[in-house]
């Protein structure tokens, strides 16, 4: 501030109005102290301040008060927000886990398609729609048709009429595609044929008699167990091969002449 005789009265008014900070007030008072002529002016302006100590009490102040709704403050807890959030997350996870445990998700096994891969062709074994008992069957090759009948009876001849002719869907070796292979067991009354399959040979499926069939254990030389029916088609192919070889051998034997020589004499057997 640059105090002078021209502007001192303005600063005295500002001082009386309490508009100066402490430093500025000290400077003005110092100027007045140095210029005594302005002291009465300062005192006169300070005297114009109204007395704030005068007591004024508004009567019946309670009549001005208002009442509002009661607000209940939340009780403070000692639980930290992080721990509370963790507890909530654990409870939610447990609820989700319990929900997942009790939801049904998969159909019965017998409605599933089981994909069986072998070295030659890919076939899909489709279990029967009804309950399939253990495949305790005896495989028998039929000469008349390229079908394989599964005979559950120990006496195969007598049980010819009761043979289930299984539908063996074979595909050429070159054609690699998944085709369902239906298997039959003695306990099955119906065999479902998949119409989408393009079989090379199809055998007529004969429904069995109502009588139940005994389950005969599979021979050990069969590359299939009672529990695992994989490779049945391989068995079919193998049997076909054996049959052909036997036929060839038989034919060759029929055309073969055996000569037995005893010294000078010889005996010919055959054609």
């Amino acid at each position: 501030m640059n105090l002078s005789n021209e502007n001192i009265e303005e600063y005295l008014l500002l001082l009386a109005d309490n508009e100066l900070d402490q430093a500025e007030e000290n400077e003005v008072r110092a100027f007045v102290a140095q210029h005594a002529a302005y002291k009465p002016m300062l005192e006169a302006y300070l005297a114009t301040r109204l007395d704030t100590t005068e007591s004024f009490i508004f009567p019946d102040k309670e009549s001005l008060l208002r009442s509002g709704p009661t607000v209940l403050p939340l009780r403070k807890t000692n639980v930290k927000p992080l721990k509370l959030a963790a507890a909530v997350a654990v409870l939610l996870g447990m609820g989700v886990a319990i929900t997942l445990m009790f939801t049904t998700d998969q159909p019965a096994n017998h409605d599933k398609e089981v994909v069986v891969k072998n070295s030659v062709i890919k076939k899909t074994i489709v279990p029967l729609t009804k309950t399939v008992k253990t495949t305790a069957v005896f495989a028998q090759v039929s000469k008349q048709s390229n079908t394989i009948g599964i005979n559950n009876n120990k006496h195969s001849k007598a049980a010819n009429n009761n043979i289930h002719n299984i539908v063996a869907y074979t595909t050429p070796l070159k054609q690699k595609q998944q085709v369902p292979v239906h298997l039959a067991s003695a306990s099955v009354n119906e065999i479902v044929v998949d119409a989408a399959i393009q079989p090379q040979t199809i055998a007529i499926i004969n429904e069995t008699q109502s009588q139940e069939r005994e389950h005969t254990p599979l021979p050990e030389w069969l590359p299939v167990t009672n529990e695992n029916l994989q490779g049945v088609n391989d068995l079919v192919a193998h049997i076909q091969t054996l049959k052909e070889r036997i036929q060839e051998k038989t034919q060759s034997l029929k055309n073969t002449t055996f000569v037995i020589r005893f010294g000078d004499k010889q005996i010919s057997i055959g054609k």
Partner: protein
Amino acid sequence: MTTPEYNHCVRELADGLYRFACKSIGDSEEAKDMVQQAFTVLWEKREEVPPDKGKSFLFTIAYRKCMDVHRARERTTDTERLHENFLSEQPKTNDLKKILQKALATLDTQSRDLVMLKDYEGYSYEEIATVTGLNTTQVKVYLHRARKILKNYLVSKEHVI
């Protein structure tokens, strides 16, 4: 502004508002009604008024009502008599204060209200401008003019200083 905040304004500001109204219009009963009206308006508009603006809101209402009273009277002589009578009813502390009250009564309504807002309530020039609707420069000029009048009244040869 919540109800507790409103009630806090009542307890803290009712006396000062009453003093301002009394000093301005010179009638304690009318001043009491004016205070009640001011708080009623504050309660009705409490949702629009922030808690820290309660004081300026109340004094703005009181100032405008005082100006309305003064305009309704429109007779300076009667106003001066009211102030003289009012001041004579006040407890006599010392001569200076009494003379000052008389000097205050000689001011026009607006100047007197500005001085009271400045000295009784401690408002700054800017806050007084907000309450009265004037600009800061006008407040400063009017106040300085009022102070000079008061000073001249006090230092005249008929009075104390």
